[in-house]
């Protein structure tokens, strides 16, 4: 591989790193036995490395090109930025994927692109790279393609036949922000693209023959946090709408990060990374813990999640009348509302209590930390007494100030 390719790789990976998604999970299972190429997908993803920012490296995540005709203020690749530009040919990107894959560096490819000439032209090049991988190289690994919002639905359909996952990035959480930060894009167009992808995924899943069923199994999106003034409850409400309407597998939140040659339209400082973390936690409650969007809004303080307390604890402190929860009797959905109790621990408790009534001792073996649960539960040998009503409970649950400093650089 020439140094030319290496230079392009440096530019086009650097340009892709602000996309938080790296998941390689949820693809249809397959492998390369009986085929000519390499690759397999076994359902759950694999992180092949971790960068010093703690993020997983699962896929070769690159742009095909970082030239772009749009001028979205938050984006390092906007037309008005002075970053170095490069462009891979479809062959180069496909060969690089195969070379990395054969060494077990990656699970597959996550390919996106700046918009050059037109959305259709750009989409065609993404598709061509995936086609080379699937047809010429007989690649059976994971492919995630970015669906360009304004591209012809027929092109999106073709992309879906080649990829395991499609994504359209909504980037901004509400319509009003588009006008100032992404003037050439529209909230409604992005929403329509997501609807079209969901429609195609549903139609393929309903097909009887396995060949016709072959299609991307999911879509995801990303929202940038802190580039505009949208509050957390509005962000979460948009997420809930996207999950409900378009069956997204994931909404990724990306705390707006300082970028080289930033636009003057942006705040110079990044929002605390902990805000992104709290949004992920709240999103998790929405998807896996049966919380409604109204309950999450209730957990916020004037629309913003508490940076020092996780959203479930915030919610519990505002709904103390529902606690303590009896771990020996409470239904699963109520156990899941206990701060500090996760899905696995709750399920283990439900299994264990069929054998014997649970004591604190049992709980300490089933949950990762019993201390956090204490104010919110009763067990055979435990009631929290007055702690739950105590005015000081909130202070007690907050981390020590010293710990805050530790987190500050995280």
């Amino acid at each position, binding site marked *: *591989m020439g140094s030319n390719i*290496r230079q392009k*790789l440096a530019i086009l*990976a*650097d340009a892709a*790193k602000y996309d938080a998604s790296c998941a390689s999970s949820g693809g249809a299972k397959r*492998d*390369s*036995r009986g*085929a000519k190429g*390499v*690759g397999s997908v*076994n359902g759950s993803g*694999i*992180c*092949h490395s971790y960068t*010093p*920012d*703690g*993020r*997983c*490296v699962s896929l*070769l995540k690159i742009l095909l090109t970082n030239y772009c005709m749009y*001028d979205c203020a938050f984006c390092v690749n906007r*037309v*008005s930025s*002075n970053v170095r530009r490069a462009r891979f040919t479809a062959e180069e990107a496909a060969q690089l994927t195969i*070379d*990395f894959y*054969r*060494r077990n*560096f990656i699970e597959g490819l996550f390919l996106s692109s700046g918009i050059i000439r037109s959305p259709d032209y750009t989409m065609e090049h993404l598709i061509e790279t995936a086609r080379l991988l699937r047809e010429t190289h007989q690649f059976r690994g994971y492919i995630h393609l970015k669906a360009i919002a304004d591209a012809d639905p027929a092109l999106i359909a073709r992309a879906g036949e080649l990829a395991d996952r499609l994504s359209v990035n909504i980037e901004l959480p509400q*319509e009003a922000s588009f006008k100032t930060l992404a*003037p*050439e894009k*529209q909230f*409604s167009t992005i*929403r*329509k693209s997501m*609807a*079209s992808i*969901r429609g195609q995924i549903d139609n393929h899943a309903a097909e009887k023959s396995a060949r016709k069923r072959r299609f991307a199994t999911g879509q995801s999106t990303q929202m940038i946090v802190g580039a505009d003034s949208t509050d957390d409850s509005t962000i979460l409400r948009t997420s*809930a*709408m996207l999950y*409900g*309407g378009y069956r997204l597998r994931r909404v990724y939140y990306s705390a707006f*990060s300082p970028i080289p*040659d930033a*636009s003057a339209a942006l705040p*110079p400082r990044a929002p605390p*990374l902990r805000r992104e973390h709290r949004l992920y936690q709240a999103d998790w409650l929405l998807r896996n813990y*049966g919380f*409604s*969007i109204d309950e999450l809004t209730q957990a916020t303080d004037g629309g913003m999640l508490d940076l020092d307390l996780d959203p479930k604890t915030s919610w519990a402190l505002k709904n103390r009348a529902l606690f303590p929860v009896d771990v020996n009797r409470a239904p699963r959905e109520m156990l899941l509302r206990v701060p500090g109790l996760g899905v696995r621990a709750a399920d*283990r408790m439900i*299994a264990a209590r069929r*054998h014997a009534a649970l004591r604190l001792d049992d709980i300490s*073996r089933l949950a990762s930390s019993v201390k956090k649960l204490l104010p919110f539960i009763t067990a055979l040998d435990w009631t929290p007494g007055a702690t739950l009503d105590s005015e000081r409970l909130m202070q007690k649950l907050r981390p020590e100030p010293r710990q805050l400093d530790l987190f500050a*650089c*995280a």
Partner: protein
Amino acid sequence: MRMIALDRPDDPERFYQHAAALIAEGETPERVGWSVGAAGDLFASAAPAPRAPWRGEKHFTAALLHRAESRFAMVYRALWRAARDPRFLQNPADSDVRALKKLEGEARRDIHKMRAFVRFRELGDGAQARFLAWYEPSHYTLRANADFFARRFANMRWSIVTPELSAHYDEGEVRFAPGGARGDVPADDARDEDWRTYYASIFNPARLNLAAMQSQLPKKFWRNLPEAQAIPALARAAQNRAEAMIATPPTPPRFSLSRPPAPQSEAPADASDLADLRAQLACCEKCPLHRDATQTVCGAGPARAQLMIVAEQPGDQEDICGAPLVGPAGKVFDEALRRVGCVRAEIYVTNAVKHFKFTLKGKRRIHAKPSVGEIDACSWWLHREIELMRPKIIVAMGASALRGLTGQTLSVRESRGGLIELAENRRLLATTHPAYLLRLEDEQEKRLAWRAFLDDLTQAVKLAE
């Protein structure tokens, strides 16, 4: 004490055969000792250890791959207990179950990490290429993992060498051989530098978080990962790089921007035909429903159609694909049309309200009834459609359609089947909404409602002729 010597440390099948025989012989866990290889000889009886086929589920096989010497005794103890009363297996608070789950978890993690961190180095090229990897697992996991690599790299010749065992794959077969040394595998690969370039470029220095990285990628793995040698320098430089990005003022673009025109969202001022109407409708903000819906769902059908059907509002599927009456109620409607001999492509189908109204319930959007205010706001569009179409007969399906067309709140039960005269000599026939037919559970009631619905449609088709 019965000493059982196993040939290999990673052979759950054989272990289960011994366990089956020992349980049948009534050997209590306290009386059985386990060892691997020759170490057991000292105590072993001359006779080979007994074996029997294992019937039933094989619990804790992953725990048997753990390096802990006590693993065989622990699993045998659990199997012995299970033979008497297997219920404890379902109790996560049981101390044997907990201890074994812990071993299993660690062995599984080891399997997963091997899949992640094996790095093949290419030797030779073209058809002769071989891919070799040196790897140091924490447990006896290579044999269990070989199938994963065989499926994934079915058309490569590869070897994974570990200190205790090596796996060699060629032409669909995995062969196992004794372990080797780091020196048996090339230290470098032609793509290492590209991989390090990628690794360094995908890292965001503004988010340095070494603790998070090390919880997933502990230092013990670093020495066999080509990218790991870049970590210290990347971490050192990160703070400065991030500060520099913030401190550097934005530079003006090197060229003057000729912006592509913003997408057209201006609607034509006047709707002289249905196409104009659709374009106008797409930007409608007459009521708040546009905020959460994906798109306006316009009427569909030929402009010359004499029969116009008005339903309530788009549902989840209509909102997704942008066409009216295609969801479950649409299927019922199509079936009814088929029975009265009417062709959908020849009629015009629209809704009283053009945006989907819903409430979120978990991950589902549940249809919500449009309010009178929303129906009335949207009736402006409905009447524009009628003016442009001039159909002979309009069918209102359900109460919302009746409201949109008449401006009055009328009962469907009382109005259905009868003709209502609208302004400009237009005639309206009221009937039930097909979703109503879907909801009915009583068979008798359902039959009657279907009959009435078909009668109404038949009448409408006649009036349209």
